C-alpha cells in the first residue's frame, strides 16, 4: 500500500504539533519528556515518508539514527529527572528555575 506523501507528512505535522502542545502545557517534567519523544517520532515519521516517496534508504537511516538518539536522550533525561526529584521533591519544572538558566 502506498500512502501519498502529503498525508504522511500531514500526520507527522499533527503529531509534532501535539507533542509541542504537550510540551508547552505540561508542568510535569515526565509528561514533557514524553511530549519531546512524540515530537522526535513525528520527525522520524516525516523522514520515513519522504524516504519511501523518493525510494531512498536515507530516510530509514535517519529514523534509526533518531531512535538511537532518543534512547540515549531518554536515559540521560530520566537520570536528570531522578536527580531533580531528589533535590526538589517534585517533578514540577517551574520549581527548577532557580538558576535562571
Amino acid at each position, binding site marked *: 500500500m502506498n500512502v501519498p506523501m502529503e498525508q504522511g507528512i500531514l500526520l507527522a505535522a499533527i503529531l509534532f504539533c501535539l507533542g509541542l502542545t504537550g*510540551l*508547552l502545557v505540561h508542568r510535569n517534567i515526565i509528561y514533557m519528556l514524553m511530549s519531546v519523544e512524540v515530537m522526535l517520532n513525528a520527525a522520524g515519521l516525516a523522514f520515513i515518508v519522504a524516504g519511501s516517496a523518493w525510494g531512498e534508504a536515507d530516510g530509514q537511516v535517519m529514523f534509526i539514527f533518531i531512535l538511537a538518539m532518543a534512547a540515549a536522550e531518554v536515559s540521560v533525561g530520566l537520570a536528570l529527572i531522578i536527580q531533580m526529584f531528589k533535590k526538589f521533591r517534585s517533578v514540577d*519544572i517551574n520549581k527548577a*528555575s*532557580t538558576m535562571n538558566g
Partner: protein
Amino acid sequence: MKELLWLIVALPFSGALILALAGRKLSRLTCSIIGVGTVSLSAGLTILAGLDFMGNNPTGKPYLQVLWRWIDVGGLSPDIAFHLDAVSLTFIFVITFVGALIHLYSAQFMWKEDGFSRFFTYMNLFIGFMLVLVLADNLLLLYLGWEGVGLCSYLLIGFWYKNPDNGYAARKAFIVTRVGDTALAIGLFILFMTFHSLNIREILNAAPGTWGIGSGIAVAVALLLLGGAVGKSAQLPLQTWLPDAMAGPSPVSALIHAATMVTAGVYLIARTHVLFELAPIVQTTVAVIGAATLLIAGFSALNQHDIKRVLAYSTISQIGYMFLALGVGAWSAAIFHFMIHAFFKALLFLGAGAVIWVLNDEHNMFKMGGLRKKLPVVFWTFLIASGSLAALPLITAGYFSKDKIIWLAYVGDKGSVVLWLAALIGAFITALYTFRMVFLTFFGTTKAEPSARPGTGMVIPMLILAFFSFAAGYIELPENMGHVVLFSGFIEKTLPATATIHLGNSTELVFQLIAGLAAISGLFVAYKYYFNKPYPAAVPERNALQNFFFNGWDFDFVYDKMIVTPIVFLSRIDKDDFVDLFYKGLASLARALNIVLSASQNGRVRWYAMVIAIGAILTLTLIFYP
C-alpha cells in the same frame, strides 16, 4: 687663577651636596663651617680671579671655560661653560662676597632653629645656581641657573614649612616667577630658531646683521626676555610675589630677595643688551616699567608697618631704578646701582633681621622704638645703610649710584623729562619711607625690650657691609666731583657706554642739587612726622587710599579675581573629568541592555520552548511567505 673659575661654582654645590647627604648627622658647628666655609672660599677665589682678570687683561677680553658638552642634538649643542667678563665678574663678586657675609650672619641667626643643615643646604645651593646664572655662556645654562635660584627662593621662603601661609607665599613666588620664566623660554625658542645657537655671544654678534632695528621679531624676543626679567626682578606687572616672600628667614631676604636673585632680571637685560637696542620700543618699555614700578612700590613702602615689607617694597622700587637705567641705556649705571644696592639692602635686611631676632619675632615697626641706645651697632650700621638707600648727598654710596641714574634718565639720549621726574619723586619717597622706618624703629620711646644682643657672628658682616655701603660709592664719581670712572670704565669693557647729550658740568650740578634736595626733603618730612612721635604700639589705622597703597595697589586682588578664582572654580566643577562621562555613559548603556536581555533569561523551560516554537514559526513564515 682664572682656571679655577669652575671651582668658584663647584664649591657651594659641593657644600650643598655634603649637607644634603650628611647634614642631619653633623653637628651645627660642622654644618655652619661647611656652609660658610665653601662660600667664603668661593669669595676668596673670586677676588683672586678678579684681580687676575683685571690685572692681566687691560682690554677686558672675556675668559671662557668649557667644562663639558651638555646636550648635543640636531644642532642644539650648549656646553656647560662659564664666561667671565666685567659684568659677570661684578656679579659673582657681589654674590660670593655678600653671600659669604650673609652665610656668616645666618650661622648665628639660625642657630636655634630646626633644620639648621637644611637651611645651609638651600643657601649653598642658591649661591651655586646664582653663580651658574651669571657665568653661563649660553642661554640654556643661564636658564638652568635662573630656575635653580627660583627653586631655592621657593625652598627658603617656605623654610618654616609648618605655617601654611609660608608655603603659600613660597608657591606664589615660584609660580609668579615661573610665568616670567616661561616667557623667557619662548624667547629662547625664537632665538634658537633664528640663530641655531643659544650661545650668548654668537647671538649678540649675529643679531644686528639678521634683524633690523625695530623689526617685529626682535621686538617679540626682547619683550619675551623682558617678561622673564620682570618676573624674576619683581617688576610691574609681576611684582606681587616679593612682599610675600618676606615670610622666609631674614638672611634669606637679604641674600635672595634683595642682593642677588631679584637682580637677575637686570643681569639678563644687561647681558642681552644688543637685543634690546634692536627693539627701541621695548627698551623704552623697560624704562617705563622701571619708572612706574619705582613709584608704585615707593608708595606701598610708605604705608607698611612690617619692617621687612618696607624693605621688600623698597627693593622693588630700587630695582625699578635699575630698570630705568637699563631702559635709558645707562648700562654701567644700572650695574653700579645693583652693586651698591646689594651692599646696603643686604645690610638693611640683616639689621632688620637682628632687630626682629632680639625682639622675639616682632615685625611691626610701631611696636618697636628706642632701640638706638639698646642696639648701638645695629643702629649705626642700619643708619649708614638707610642713608645710602635714601641717597643722602656726598656721604653715602647710594647717592653716587642713584644720582647717576637720575641724571642719565634726563640726559641719556633715550631719557626724558618724565622719566627724570619719576626718578626724582621716587628719590623723595625713598628718603621719606627710609627715615620713617629708622625713626619708628630706633628713636622715640622704648616699646619692647630686646631679649638678647646680636653676637659677633652677626655684627661682623654688618660692619663690613656698612663700610661698603659708605665707601663703595667713591669708585665712581661724577664728572664735576673728581670724575672717578673706575667702575664704569671697567664695565664698559663689556657693555657699551651711555650715549648722552652733553649739557655741561654746571647743568649737572643743578641736577645734582635737585636730586640731593629731594632726598634731604624726604628725610625732613620723615623727621617732622615720625621723629619721637607717640604712635600707639599697634597696626596703624589707614584710610582707603592708604589701604590701597598698603595692599600693593591691589594687584593681588585683581590677579586673584581674574586668574586664580576662575582656575580654582574650573578645577572644582570638573574634578572627575567630564570626558569620563562619555565612557561611563557607554558602560551604563551596556548595563541597561544587559538588564533588558537578562530578563528573558528566566529559567522556565516551557517559556523557552514556546519562544523556540514561535521563533520557528516566524522563521518558516518568513521563508515561505516573504
